[in-house]
């Protein structure tokens, strides 16, 4: 097995400096560092760090938005980063998940059932997943760029449907989307600033409960996707991305795996939508525009498609920067657009790329064949 170890060393050699230094730390250290980082994340709302606080908007709300966007990015990363499918209409799944919770859970929806949150959310995930399969079934046989336009269309169809159908109440929307629980904070939690025992855990005016819930889901989902990535499944996705036909000839049921990627992505999208609108308690067709969907793709790629940490960073920037720099409100998209161009030119591999991609990009760049 010594040759096997050498094979792994070959991989390690290709890693970038920081990353290899990290992975050469003793395991106990790494666990410790990750633990400390998690504690930091959970306590961010109470820490009151001056510079990163958002000026206009409630900081915990922004953190919650970041967490939801990270969840979105993790799901989108499965589709784009791992399976290499370009999904420009991801927001459709987000909407499906959100509306499912609203319609099934709100007393004000046209549908009479009134399920509690904990029942609604699994249904929402399932419905989103189903919509992923329904969309993927006919379209995943198409080649890459065709998929892009078809998914874009899907996103728009969902939005138009939300806007014009009776079950969604159009733009009048549905209020009273259920919150995860009506319970109050237990009294032993009150050591934490912001938490008071007379207050609900999931309160619209103090959203720390939502943030913690979202953060926990993010961690679980990242771990789950990591497991997939490092298994036969992830390898098949990679092979499909590299050369679909060759993968198929090597016995990879490409369609099935692409469909799985789509379904998993859709499920995560649905979950994020459900989560976000549980906190907002009101949903209408606003906020599901294609543009947001496209921004998500940009965030994933800029963060570093294929690397979960990278896409998380991309998502956080997308959620956080506009809130932090509200004074540029009118120009923020302009700045964003320019930033995208600059980023792709100076850091095409993304902020925190996956090892594989950064190597690939480096090699490709060196091979650029043009003679001036």
């Amino acid at each position, binding site marked *: 097995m010594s040759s096997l170890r050498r094979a792994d060393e070959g991989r390690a050699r290709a890693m970038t400096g920081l990353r290899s230094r990290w992975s050469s730390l003793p395991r106990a250290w790494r666990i410790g560092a990750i633990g400390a980082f998690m504690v930091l994340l959970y306590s961010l709302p109470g820490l009151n760090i001056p510079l990163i606080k958002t000026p206009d908007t409630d900081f915990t709300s922004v953190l919650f938005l970041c967490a939801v966007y990270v969840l979105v990015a993790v799901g989108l990363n499965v589709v784009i980063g791992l399976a290499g499918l370009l999904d420009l209409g991801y927001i459709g799944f987000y909407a499906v998940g959100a509306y499912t919770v609203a319609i099934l859970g709100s007393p004000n929806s046209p549908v009479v059932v009134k399920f509690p949150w904990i029942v609604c959310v699994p249904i929402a995930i399932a419905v989103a997943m189903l919509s992923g399969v329904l969309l993927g079934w006919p379209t995943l046989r198409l080649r890459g760029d065709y998929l892009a336009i078809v998914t874009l269309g899907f996103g728009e169809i969902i939005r138009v449907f939300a806007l014009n159908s009776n079950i969604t109440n159009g733009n009048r929307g549905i209020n009273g989307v259920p919150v995860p629980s009506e319970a109050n904070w237990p009294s032993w939690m009150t050591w934490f600033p912001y938490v008071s025992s007379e207050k609900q855990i999931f309160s619209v005016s103090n959203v720390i409960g939502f943030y913690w819930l979202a953060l926990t889901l993010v961690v679980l989902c990242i771990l789950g996707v990591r497991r997939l990535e490092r298994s036969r499944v992830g390898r098949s996705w990679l092979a499909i991305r590299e050369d679909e036909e060759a993968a198929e000839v090597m016995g990879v049921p490409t369609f099935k795996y692409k469909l799985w990627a789509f379904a998993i992505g859709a499920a995560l999208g649905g979950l994020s939508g459900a989560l976000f609108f549980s906190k907002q308690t009101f949903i209408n067709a606003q906020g599901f525009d294609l543009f947001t969907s496209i921004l998500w793709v940009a965030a994933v790629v800029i963060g570093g498609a294929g690397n979960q940490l990278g896409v998380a960073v991309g998502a956080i920037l997308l959620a956080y920067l506009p809130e932090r720099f509200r004074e540029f409100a009118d120009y923020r998209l302009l700045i964003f657009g320019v930033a995208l161009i600059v980023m792709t030119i100076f850091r095409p591999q993304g902020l925190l790329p996956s090892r594989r991609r950064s190597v690939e990009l*480096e*090699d490709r760049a*060196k*091979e650029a*064949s*043009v*003679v*001036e």
Partner: protein
Amino acid sequence: MLLELKDLTLLYGRIQALHGISLTVGEGEIVALIGANGAGKSTTMRAISGLRAVAQGTILFDGEDITKLRADLRVVRGVSQSPEGRGVFPGMSVRENLEMGAYTRRNRAEIDEDLDRVFTLFPRLKEREKQAGGTMSGGEQQMLAVGRALMSRPKLLLLDEPSMGLAPMLIQQIFDIIVEINQQGTTVLLVEQNAQQALSRAHRAYVLETGRIVKEGTGQELLHDPAVKDAYLGVA
């Protein structure tokens, strides 16, 4: 000298493919380049035709330094290549592929004349004039690639493994054609795995190993060189 390479170095990312290659091709010659897989033969060809930038060294063509010249301008100067892997335009018909070979030329009458010549050399191409290049079989594409390279009426014709994928009978033919073209006045630089054939037709030849020239001589000399025989001609 029509072509002169001086101390050429070339990198693929981290990999150095050529370690200072120097060679010359005289006007009217057939020069063969032989060597094992990965020796750098195709890389040398790419450097000459300008598909790859060289790291160091110079390329002189017809006395002019073309080291930094764009690939398409080298074609205008008279360098034409049939690339490794054939590079047929898959969506164009056989005829259009051939016309592409004459892209830099304007004289319609001459072009038509050359088209006829290619069709006589490869009757299969005439038969399939309208078929899309991409649907031709491997060997048929090879014929197309060679024919297309001829269409630019080059001063220097670079052929990268023209016999690859051809049936035994055609291999014979293609070498005959190379000699014929050469006699009509085109200088040929030939890369071949089929060293036996290549050396017996070439005026001069170079042997490449891992990016370096390890031997040179006339075709006949190398054909009878025991080391070359051992490594590249196989046991007959």
